[in-house]
């Protein structure tokens, strides 16, 4: 991994730790994100994703460790840091009493923008996020998804170089999520560095250059989506759809097939987890010939990011922490 010193990296953390009283929310995490990278933070509820972002914005103070953006310390240089960083928080905390447009122009004013400048930026952002018709409405009257879009627009008023997005597409419909992802990709291609948290594997897979998997405050893997999937090669599988429901005995037989480490029902079909799909396939056909079950479909899907995620977070093994 490059950018190993705080100075070179766009976003950098070393031994970052946060205790809430005795609760260890973030446990000595380290990572280094290059300028222009789209970095995903993937983890179950309560893993420490939001806490990590809040430490970067100095909304929460770390207990130990350092966090910097372009070498600027989150505590010591907090104002300089905030002027190049944008954040979309977990909850869309827009000001409900004022209009969507006023939310944007007020945000501009907080960054020291003049009235004209922030007004024209507001128009631009309302357009970019499909909020033109809603500019004059009180933000409190917007639907959940529209509020989300407004919150994302508000994070970009000052054209930040670094954006922290905490589950940006939660609560958005398919079209809106896609358009947000497109905006993220476009800004990223223009050099903006992203740090985004998500539960959505597909989103992480599509968007991210690298993904860190975090569980119970610890980073348990950091890699590209492709490599993460390969790392979980044991999580390959053979998926079979049978002509009828197997009996309990037959089900036990499926579990006994060569190489099978687990059986999962997946809708109509059965998923046989295996490290060696070929051996399992051969053994599967021998098993079927012996009885009167027949196959109507079979496939050998590779591990999805979800498999990787489930595997890593359930094992809780420390695969190294990012640098």
């Amino acid at each position, binding site marked *: 991994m490059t950018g190993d010193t705080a100075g070179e990296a*766009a976003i950098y953390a070393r031994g970052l730790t946060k205790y809430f009283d005795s609760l260890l929310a973030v446990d000595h995490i380290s990572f280094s994100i290059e*300028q222009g990278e789209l970095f995903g933070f993937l983890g179950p509820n309560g893993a420490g994703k939001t806490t990590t972002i809040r430490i970067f*914005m*100095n*909304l*929460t*103070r770390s207990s130990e460790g350092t966090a910097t953006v*372009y*070498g*600027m310390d989150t505590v010591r*240089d907090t*104002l*300089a840091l*905030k*002027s*190049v960083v*944008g*954040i979309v*928080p977990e*909850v869309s*905390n*827009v*000001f*409900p*009493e*004022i209009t969507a447009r*006023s939310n944007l122009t*007020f*945000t501009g*004013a*907080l*960054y*020291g923008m003049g009235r004209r400048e922030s007004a024209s930026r507001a128009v631009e952002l309302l357009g970019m996020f499909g909020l033109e018709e809603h500019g004059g409405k009180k933000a409190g009257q917007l639907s959940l998804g529209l509020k989300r879009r407004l919150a994302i627009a*508000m*994070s970009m008023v*000052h054209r930040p*170089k670094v954006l922290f997005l905490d589950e940006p597409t939660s609560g958005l419909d398919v079209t809106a999520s896609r358009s947000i992802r497109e905006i993220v990709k476009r800004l990223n291609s223009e*050099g903006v560095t992203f740090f985004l948290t998500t539960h959505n594997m597909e989103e992480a897979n599509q968007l991210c250059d690298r993904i860190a998997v975090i569980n119970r405050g610890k980073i348990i893997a950091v890699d590209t989506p492709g490599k993460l999937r390969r790392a979980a090669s044991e999580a390959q599988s053979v998926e079979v759809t049978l002509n009828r429901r197997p009996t309990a005995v037959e089900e036990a037989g499926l579990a006994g097939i060569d190489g099978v480490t687990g059986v999962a029902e997946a809708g109509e079909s059965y998923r046989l987890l295996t490290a060696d799909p070929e051996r399992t396939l051969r053994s599967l056909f021998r098993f079927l010939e012996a009885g009167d079950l027949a196959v109507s479909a079979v496939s050998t899907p590779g591990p999805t990011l979800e498999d990787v995620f489930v595997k890593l977070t359930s094992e809780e093994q420390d695969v190294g922490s990012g640098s």
Partner: protein
Amino acid sequence: MLEAAASEVLLKKPGLVVGARKSWAIAVKDMKIYYFKPAILIFGALFPVTIFFAFMMGRNVEAVTLFPGLIALTLFFSTTTVAPFSIPWERMTRTFERLLFAPVSLTELALGKTISSLVFGLVMSIVPLLIGVIFFGSDVAYVWALVLGIVLGNACISNLGTLVSTVGSETPQNVMLLLNLIRLPMMFISGIFIPINELPTWGRVISWFSPVSYVVDLLRRGLGFKDYFGPVTSSLMLVAFGLAMFAVSVWRMKGWNK
């Protein structure tokens, strides 16, 4: 090129003017949002007037002598109402964090909140003054003392509201409760109902600890009544109390990023 941008930001000193504009933006936003909320109008305007007349009812004094106290009480309540409502409200709804996402220092933030309080207080305290002058023949003896009383008074006392909202808990109800627990006894040690020089010794000693006493004192001088501390002492005490309460408020806010 991004490094250059970052260092450029580091070098750019946050000028006083830029900071003041951010504070003003926060104040204007709060004026738009909070000035017309019923809770603000009730606690900031209706409440002091009602209290005043409840206490003065049946007292056999000339109406004109009531005005320094009435103006001071209105000022006291109105200027300490907006921030103790807006700060806990915004913390509860988490819009307060919005202000912290941006490069706004806590000093600028607290100043914005205080300005929104004191402008409300300024407007409200002028109302009884005008009523006194127009309808009751209040005598404007020293304009400068009136201006000092109203301007310094608001600038100082509004910080009490900001301070209380950094002490109390996060819900607006609790902060309002605490605020009233502080405001009600303060009314009686500030020379609002009975002039300080008519109080017993212990009363006169305690009155030094209430900044509202100095507002009353300046207003009494301004409206041609006998004052107690004198304009110099009063003005200096208001400045000192104001700065101290402001500093403690900012210091308290620094502890919020736990």
